[in-house]
């Protein structure tokens, strides 16, 4: 692969979006968790929910702030680096992106202010309502941006006029065939990611004997959610796979590492893909299992990449390995959820130290799974930006040179490598303080009534007092 503006622009895109996606992966789940805590506090009046909500809201605010600034970068990439794609597809994708801004940003930023600083300024029900609206905003954001992505993966409802995609049926555009599966699979993945972080933080506090009631509540709530949604996620993932087989069979072939069409097809557990020779080296196969998993029949046909000309095949290695890491993490998560539930039922959860320690280690796995899932679906749809219709190589801005994109990529790398570690250290230090220490919302009056200064408010509670 030559170093050209296309490759460099793809790396730049991957760099800014991979960092960005970590934040929604956390904030979508956390916003809903906070809404649940606020609801429980509203209906039961128990102090533990009040403390937990305040604790997590502060961490939420920091990650949300970082999500906003890293998100502002994204729409401008369409213009600077992908102008030909944007020219061709803008009539279809841009209203969906604009709706994300109008609906989601508005709801989130307005009600986050009330959530953060309005505890004593508004009644409890209004505070609960604000939490619900923030959660709703994050889900609307997921809705519109995944609708945009799904249309690029499985386009429909358009007509091509002079080489540009024009809208014909907006309902068909928004609800493209892969959209429902992608939305459910993503949002569930975000919820699972958050639940594991909540459980890990609870376990860390509990092992140090701090905020015992609060950390037990965190672990219990996370486990009770996970035992339901981890198996559900495996089901959703399977359904998404069937959908991919129908609409993006080449992507499925890459995920499976399958070059030759086979019926019945084996399941390749591991191997070293060789795209130039179109063969899987050192393959470890389980006979017939591939057909069962992918077609739900012992003899179903699985298409291989040789069905497509070489210039229409995605590279195999990245989707193949990223998918296996994602599924492996899914299995670990299922194991943790089941073991944790068994321990809870037997009443041994709180003194099983090895399990609590394990909870800490698996806490960041959700982020890895989300990024791997993203790599699988995005690399797997190559070489297309609009699947089957517009090539990635034809999408880049024609005026860009290698020097241009090298320079911008280097600057994005430097700034993100300063911003992210600082933010993560900051959030970790907030988490370490625990709910007991930051329980009391630090209301100083109307001056703080905006979402603008999450870090500041957090810092004030965390460092200066």
């Amino acid at each position: 692969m030559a170093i050209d503006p296309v490759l460099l622009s793809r790396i730049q895109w991957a760099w800014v979006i991979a960092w960005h996606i970590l934040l929604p992966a956390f904030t979508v789940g956390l916003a809903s968790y906070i809404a649940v805590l606020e609801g429980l506090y509203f209906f039961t009046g128990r102090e533990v929910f009040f403390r937990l909500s305040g604790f997590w809201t502060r961490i939420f605010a920091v990650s949300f702030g970082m999500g906003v600034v890293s998100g502002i970068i994204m729409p401008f990439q369409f213009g600077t680096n992908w102008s030909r794609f944007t020219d061709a597809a803008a009539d279809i994708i841009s209203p969906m992106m604009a709706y994300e801004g109008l609906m989601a940003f508005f709801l989130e930023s307005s009600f986050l202010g009330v959530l953060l600083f309005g505890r004593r300024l508004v009644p409890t029900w209004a505070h609960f309502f604000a939490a619900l609206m923030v959660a709703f905003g994050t889900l609307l954001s997921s809705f519109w941006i995944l609708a945009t992505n799904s249309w690029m993966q499985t386009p429909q409802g358009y007509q091509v006029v002079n080489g540009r995609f024009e809208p014909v049926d907006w309902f068909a555009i928004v609800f493209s065939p892969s959209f429902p599966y992608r939305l459910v699979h993503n949002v569930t993945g975000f919820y699972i990611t958050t639940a594991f972080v909540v459980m890990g933080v609870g376990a860390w506090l509990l092992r140090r004997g701090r905020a015992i009631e609060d950390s037990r509540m965190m672990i219990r709530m996370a486990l009770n959610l996970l035992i339901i949604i981890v198996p559900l996620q495996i089901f959703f993932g399977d359904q998404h796979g069937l959908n991919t087989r129908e609409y993006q069979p080449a992507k499925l072939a890459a995920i499976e590492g399958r070059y030759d069409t086979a019926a019945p097809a084996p399941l390749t557990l591991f191997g070293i893909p060789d795209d130039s020779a179109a063969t899987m080296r050192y393959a470890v196969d389980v006979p017939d299992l591939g057909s069962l998993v992918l077609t739900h029949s012992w003899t179903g046909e699985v298409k291989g990449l040789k069905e497509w000309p070489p210039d229409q095949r995605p590279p195999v290695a990245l989707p193949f390995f990223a998918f296996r890491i994602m599924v492996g993490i899914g299995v670990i998560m299922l194991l943790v959820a089941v073991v944790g539930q068994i321990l809870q039922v037997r009443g041994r959860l709180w003194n099983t130290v090895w399990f609590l320690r394990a909870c800490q280690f698996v806490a960041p796995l959700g982020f890895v799974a989300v990024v791997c899932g993203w790599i699988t679906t995005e690399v797997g749809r190559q070489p297309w930006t609009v699947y089957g219709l517009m090539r990635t190589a034809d999408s880049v801005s024609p005026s860009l040179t290698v020097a241009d994109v090298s320079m911008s990529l280097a600057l994005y790398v430097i700034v993100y490598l300063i911003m992210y570690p600082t933010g993560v250290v900051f959030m970790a230090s907030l988490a370490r303080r625990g709910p007991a220490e930051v329980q009391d919302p630090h209301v100083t009056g109307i001056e703080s009534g905006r979402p603008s200064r999450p870090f500041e408010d957090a810092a004030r509670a965390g460092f200066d007092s």
Partner: protein
Amino acid sequence: MVLDLVPLWTALLALAVFYYVVFDGFDLGVGMLHGMVADERDRNIVMNSIAPIWDGNETWLVFGGLGLLAAFPLAFTIIFPAVYFPTLIMLLALVFRGVAFEFRFRHPAVRRFWERGFSTGSAIATFAQGLVIGTFIHGFKVDGRNFAGTSLDWVTPFALFTGVALMFGYALLGAGWLVLKTEGPLQDWARRAGRVCLVGVVIAIVVVSIWTPLESAEIWRRWFSWPNIALLSPVPILTAATIIAEWFAFRSRYELTPFLGAIALFLLSFIGIAISLWPMIVPFHYTLWQAASSNSTQAFLLIGTLFLLPIILMYTAWSYWVFRGKVRGDIGYH
């Protein structure tokens, strides 16, 4: 019969861009002035004066960008490759400025570093926006539907001049805002800073007004052919009157007038640029109508925008109302 939505989208986008320029303009300006305030307590007041509202202002940049993309995609896809580096610098400066604002509370030892980051980031972001405006007025090399120049085409004396000019302009807005939000010696300082910025702005307006018609015969005819020269004469006359009023406003006791005067100067400059370029959205290649997206696209987004925009404006107005009045040092952040 399909209703032509281009005029409506032009108005909406002009509103969004003007809103962004004035509102993020004054907080970028305050950010630049912040770096020149010597006293630490005063610097806190300066920061606090924009703390509750600056990020809300910045979301209008996203709305402006996405609105341009949705309503006039051809403009979006030609302009942004042409201003590849100014856009990059602006985005990174805004990111750095944003996190600097928040991270400065983290630890006293790194506080000064992040404070400097905040004012430097504000200055760089403003300069980069000025580059974009200058390059836009100057026009682009276009081949078909693509930008045909290089990623360094924006390096022109004119664009560099407008970059510096916008720094004075935003600082003028910022000084007006500080006069409104502060009192005592700090307010006096802001009044003096405002007059210095006003001198810079006057020079900028005069130079740009002479430079653009000389560069483009089209713009020359637009302003100086008969009867245009008579019809358009209110614009320069009003501008001159506003400049004089602004000078005395900074010297007077009035607290809101300097800020309103600065906004008026921006509005007149905005109108001036619009008159020069109308109906071009990609000077001097594509008109608003040629660059527009399909009617279906514009209609689909318009429905939601007309419903949501008033709500957003109401919320914004409310938040400014909540934070009205003078900022004082004793209700700071810590």
